[in-house]
């Protein structure tokens, strides 16, 4: 018992440290960029906002929304990944690998190019719809037959779905050259040039998803042990799976609506978080959310400087980080079997 409380003290300290790290990365994301902003101006823009000072306007209209969006999207994708990894019992699962991001994107691109919709709130509902469609397809594939697909084959099914969705996306874009560049930038995943108005409609849904994921932590612990054991322990499997589906759709759908399909955050972060929290989802999830937010804010910050002064879409950054990681996990997991 005493050991347990000791571990929990360490974990709490770790959470606190992650929170401080997140705050620090948000502050640096606000201060550093094409125009460096002094940290006095940054503080002043919150305490005594002065519209005539250029730097303060930049903080309010560009840097702060951008950092907030990166943090919210990072936290959402990381939590979605952690929940998926628990429910599928697959360390490679994440919204991008399973084709859920691609499903949300195809719906959004269809809404933009075919229906000519531009309002971010309407687009968000299309993103939810697309994510739900993809999630349903992956789920149907995962529960085919008695035993269902093996965890690794679900990854293959996700890759095939991604290929299918992205070919449809490309087909719709191929003849819509107006604004191709704009959509293309969105499609690689980017948090740049977005205003608070684009985040606000999605924020409540993200919040609901995050809270649900955290509240149901105990259930992720149980289902991660395997469906048989979970059933034996009296868990309502269908309820937990449905809840996981709703959470993933809310989180991934709203993240894609705001920032485009940013890949492979959901796969890396839970693995990093596990180093600090252990396997207990009650701790794993808060760690994942904080680390995911920090990771995306930092990736976005790095994306401004790698090819200075031209910015790289942050989705390219996360793919460059995440793909080697994916390969590493794939190698490790197969060795165990």
């Amino acid at each position, binding site marked *: 018992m005493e050991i347990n409380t000791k571990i929990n003290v360490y974990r709490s300290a770790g959470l606190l440290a992650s929170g401080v790290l997140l705050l620090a990365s948000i502050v640096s994301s606000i201060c550093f960029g094409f125009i460096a902003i002094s940290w006095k101006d940054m503080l002043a823009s919150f305490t005594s906002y002065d519209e005539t000072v250029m730097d303060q306007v930049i903080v309010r209209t560009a840097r702060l929304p951008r950092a907030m969006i990166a943090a919210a999207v990072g936290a959402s994708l990381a939590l979605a990944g952690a929940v998926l990894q628990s429910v599928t019992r697959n360390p490679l699962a994440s919204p991008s690998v399973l084709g859920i991001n691609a499903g949300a994107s195809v719906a959004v691109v269809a809404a933009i190019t075919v229906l000519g919709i531009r309002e971010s709130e309407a687009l968000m509902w299309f993103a939810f719809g697309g994510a739900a469609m993809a999630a349903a397809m992956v789920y149907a594939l995962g529960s085919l037959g008695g035993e269902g697909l093996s965890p690794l084959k679900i990854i293959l099914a996700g890759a095939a779905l991604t290929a299918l969705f992205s070919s449809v996306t*490309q087909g719709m874009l191929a003849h819509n050259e107006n604004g191709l560049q704009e959509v293309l930038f969105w499609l690689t995943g980017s948090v740049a040039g977005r205003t608070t108005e684009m985040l606000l409609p999605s924020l409540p849904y993200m919040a609901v998803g995050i809270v649900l994921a955290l509240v149901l932590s105990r259930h992720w612990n149980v289902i991660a042990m395997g469906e048989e054991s979970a059933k034996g322990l009296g868990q309502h499997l269908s309820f937990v799976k449905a809840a996981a589906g709703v959470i993933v759709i809310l989180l991934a759908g709203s993240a894609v609506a705001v920032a485009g399909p940013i890949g492979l955050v959901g796969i890396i972060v839970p693995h990093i978080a596990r180093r600090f929290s252990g396997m207990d989802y009650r701790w794993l999830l808060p760690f994942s959310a904080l680390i995911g937010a920090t990771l995306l804010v930092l990736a976005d910050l790095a994306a401004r400087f790698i090819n200075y002064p031209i910015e790289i879409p942050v989705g390219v950054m996360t793919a460059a980080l995440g793909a080697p990681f994916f390969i590493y996990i794939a190698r490790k997991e197969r060795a165990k079997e």
Partner: protein
Amino acid sequence: MNASKLTAPATGRPARAHRPTVKAVSLLSAVLLVMAAAYLMMGETMYDPVTAWLALWGSGTEDGTMIVQSLRAPRLVVALLVGASLALSGAILQAIIRNPLAAPDVVGITGGASFGAVIFITAFAGTVGIRLLPVAAIIGAVCAAALVYVLAWKRGVSSLRLVLVGIGLSSLLSAGVSFMLAFSPVYSATSAYIWLTGTIYGSSWEHVWTLMPWTAVLGIAVYFHTRTIQAQLLGDELAAGIGSAVQRHRLLLVLLCVGLAGSAVSIGGAIGFVGLIAPHVARRLVGPVMNRVLPVSALFGAIVVAAADLIGRTVFLPLDIPVGVFTSAIGAPFFIYLLYRSRNRG
């Protein structure tokens, strides 16, 4: 010479032709001819067979000659060559890896070729002729294949790990491609993007002459190595037992496979899933023996790409939908069906 005995049905000249093969080849050839005719006749302007035939040989009206001879005919030839190359590449890969899920696009070869080609297009846009484009794509494909193979190696290469590593590398490469595209000038980004989907829109005889030598040389090389490919199917130990230099042959076959896929991608873009489907259909039609599977796959691949392109440019007029959209729309569900069928294994 034990090899020829053990794999007799594969290599020895059979006394009588294998009837399903004869049937399949003649049926597919007939389909191919009909489709080629339809391809030349149909489009924004329709021609009757006689006009199209005359136009093809340059003795019709001026407009007709222009459309049929210099627009539709080269595009048809490119479709056939690309389809056959991708199908052969897939058939070889499935034999080497001994896994029906393998295909050049699944294991990252297509991604590597795309990356090589996009670098070539954006870096040397306009300064170097397209004749060198296949070289760039093939170099990209070879690098990707080597990388996937090395990364999947862990006391031998398991095919599932190969596929997983391929998926990971593909996502990295596609991020690299988007990166290149997002910073190239708008016109080249648009054309490169459409090309990435897999399209043979605007193919000219220049494209045909660029691709033809590769397909011809590699295709002939495949023909002469049919036995080697068959031996790979036996598994390493048995193949070594019948005197096949397994590893050396495998390297050669991987090069053939990558060369075919790379040259096809360099002209047609990343046309998905053809290399996956064609060998399956061929095996279903004529059984597993390679000297039958290879020609039937090539025929079927050619038909699929040409048919998909015909649909893409006629059904949605005036739009010209990239051919890759259709092949993926058929191929992805088919891939999932294959997964479903193999759900109780491995």
